[in-house]
């Protein structure tokens, strides 16, 4: 039995130590929370932060939500779709969880989407695949972070209106997350008079971006949508080739996530990014969250940690509405989608009818303050929907953003 419970981080190691009988109690009447994350391989960076964010949240709550003890069960998908499916089954069928937080990557989410719909377990994921809340919605899905394109719509607006950029080149990894981000930026930027002159798509495992960077000329700025470890490499190489001095650089939330700040040198200074979370945001819950993250893990939180923390808040709010009950799944998901919060690490938000968040998007500038790098908020776009200012019906009638949509104007 000891082995069996070894895996379960009962939040608050202290609480577990103080209540050695907690597992039995939790098994009987606790809320079971499953976390699908990645703890091995190249995606582990974000995966570990997801675990940290949720742990900080549950520790703040003393592992009690809406009067019920909470048991957290962490599953490592290994960062692949088949692993995500198996681990989702493990959480649902063996551990009988009431909610699943995660998974991390879009391809993991898409691999389990049908299963989740069938198993009727509320799923709160950070994975950004646009169509999960657009053209292929899932009625048990809730996304409190953002779609891939959600932050890049306002960034396109900002680039055109406030930065007065006219000609921009985009560069992003050659896969769906890159296409959707770039598509969102392009559509709004071009809608407001700007022009995308070049779209560059380095493959996922590109070691040297120079051949792509060599093609950038005659522009006012460069937008990038990198994720994972690539932002570090990209900014090093971009600055190394002297491009940073010529063309200002913009990026999506994964490209300049706050958790990456300790990894960036001066190469990324001045970058303008759009994100749905910023550790710089001054709300009571965010100040406490950031302080706890620094204290417990030595990390300034970025989107991955904040995302699971906010998911925890959504779960708590939903449980309070249902009086702690989780057995009626239809009521539970309705309660979850009806959550509307004001004091969160990302500020005020609520969900639309697809379960996708409507909330703040922050435009930040990367600067050095008191010797360390920070993303300073320079503008806040409130109540940003995944459809931006477009009409929902017309938006959904168009294809999802892809490599060739919107097309490059010649």
């Amino acid at each position, binding site marked *: 039995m000891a082995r*069996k419970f070894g895996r379960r981080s009962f939040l608050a190691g202290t609480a577990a130590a103080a209540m050695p009988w907690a597992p039995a109690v939790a098994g009987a009447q606790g809320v079971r929370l499953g976390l699908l994350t990645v703890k*091995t391989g190249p995606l582990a960076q974000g995966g570990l932060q997801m675990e940290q964010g949720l742990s900080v949240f549950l520790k703040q709550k003393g592992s009690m939500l809406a009067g019920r003890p909470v048991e957290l069960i962490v599953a490592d998908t290994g960062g692949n779709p088949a692993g995500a499916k198996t681990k989702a089954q493990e959480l649902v*069928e*063996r551990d009988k969880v009431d909610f699943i937080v995660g998974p991390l990557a879009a391809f993991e989410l898409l691999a389990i989407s049908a299963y989740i719909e069938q198993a009727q377990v509320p799923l709160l994921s950070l994975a950004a*695949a646009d169509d999960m809340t657009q053209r292929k919605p899932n009625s048990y899905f809730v996304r409190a972070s953002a779609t891939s394109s959600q932050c890049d719509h306002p960034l396109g607006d900002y680039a055109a209106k406030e930065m007065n950029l006219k000609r921009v080149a985009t560069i992003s990894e050659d*896969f*769906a997350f890159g296409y959707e981000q770039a598509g969102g930026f392009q559509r709004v930027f071009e809608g407001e008079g700007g022009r995308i002159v070049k779209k560059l798509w380095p493959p996922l495992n590109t070691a040297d971006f120079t051949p792509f960077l060599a093609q950038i000329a005659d522009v006012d700025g460069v937008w990038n949508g990198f994720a994972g470890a690539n932002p570090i490499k990209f900014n090093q190489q971009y600055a190394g080739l002297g491009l940073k001095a010529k063309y200002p650089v913009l990026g999506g939330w994964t490209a300049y996530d706050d958790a990456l700040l300790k990894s960036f040198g001066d190469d990324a200074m001045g970058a303008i990014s759009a994100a749905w979370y910023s550790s710089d945001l001054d709300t009571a819950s965010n100040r406490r969250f950031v302080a706890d993250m620094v204290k417990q893990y030595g990390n300034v939180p970025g989107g991955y940690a904040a995302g699971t923390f906010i998911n925890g808040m959504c779960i708590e709010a939903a449980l309070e509405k249902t009086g702690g009950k989780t057995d009626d799944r239809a009521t539970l998901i309705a309660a979850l989608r009806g959550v509307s919060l004001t004091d969160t690490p990302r500020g005020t938000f609520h969900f639309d009818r697809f379960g996708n968040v409507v909330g703040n998007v922050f435009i930040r500038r990367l600067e050095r303050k008191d010797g360390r790098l920070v993303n300073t908020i320079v503008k806040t776009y409130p109540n940003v929907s995944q459809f931006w200012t477009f009409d929902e019906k017309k938006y959904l009638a168009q294809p999802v953003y892809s490599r060739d949509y919107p097309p490059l104007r010649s």
Partner: protein
Amino acid sequence: MIRAAAAAVALCALAAAPLWIPGGYYLNILSQILIYAIFALGLNLLVGYAGLVSLGHAGLFGVACYAVAWLVAAGAGQLVAALGALAVLLATTAAFAVLSLRSAGIGFLMITLAIGQILWGMAYRWIDLTGGDNGINLAARPQPFGISLAFATPFYYFTLIVFLVALASVAVFIASPLGASLKGTRDQPRRMSALGYNVWLIRFLAFLFSGLWSGVAGLLFCYYNQFVSPNVLSLGSSAEALLMVISGGSGTLLGPIAGAALVVVMKNVASAYIERWNFLLGAIFVAIVLFMPEGLVPGSARLGRRLWLRLRGVPAAGGAR
């Protein structure tokens, strides 16, 4: 005699698995082990019996996976889709074989690796066909003879039947004259050639057979997950299958099955209890090489025999003298 008894016991245990395995989740794990075992059985035909080490077999596994998902999505019936996928698979395998059999040894390994990587790259970039990294969903599992495979138990039996057919066919193949000549081409290719055997043709047929079972495993994998994305074709997947074959014992009938069980259990079950399961898996591979370089199955058989002899008071080492 003992062997036959052991086989009967194993068969009964597998047939009765839904009775003794607690819950659908673990039965699904067992189904996964069988799927990967079929994949490894197929790969072992090349690695173990032909002496040709492929690092691109996930390409064949993946092609079958994509083909069936694509055909079903395009509106084909399940049977048509399955047969169509097998046809696509065999055509791909034949091309794969013709290209890679230009070489043997490390050259063969490198060619298969390159082809595997090219197929992986195509899965990412040929988005119209594959959906890119968003993959393709399979709407439903097939219903052979009207039996729904939606739940764990019927799917398990379906997989078990396919697995037993695969196992039997591989066993028959190996015991056949063709299997014997395949082993000949592994050990003495020049002599086989001198004796008038068409080494290339023997290898080609073995490759087709190997590809067939790898692809069938891919089909089952697609049915199981109801989702396919470029990850199934990655170099990591190819390496994983190869590790299953070698760790279990290449060139033995049961080795690949043990290897498949080891890897699937470590990835899916042990990972729930041991945070650093990836390290442990690597360490197990290293330990296997140190203590049973011939693989788990033949290695345990050897250790078992030695133990048996020691128990009976026969000095183990050098006892034959």
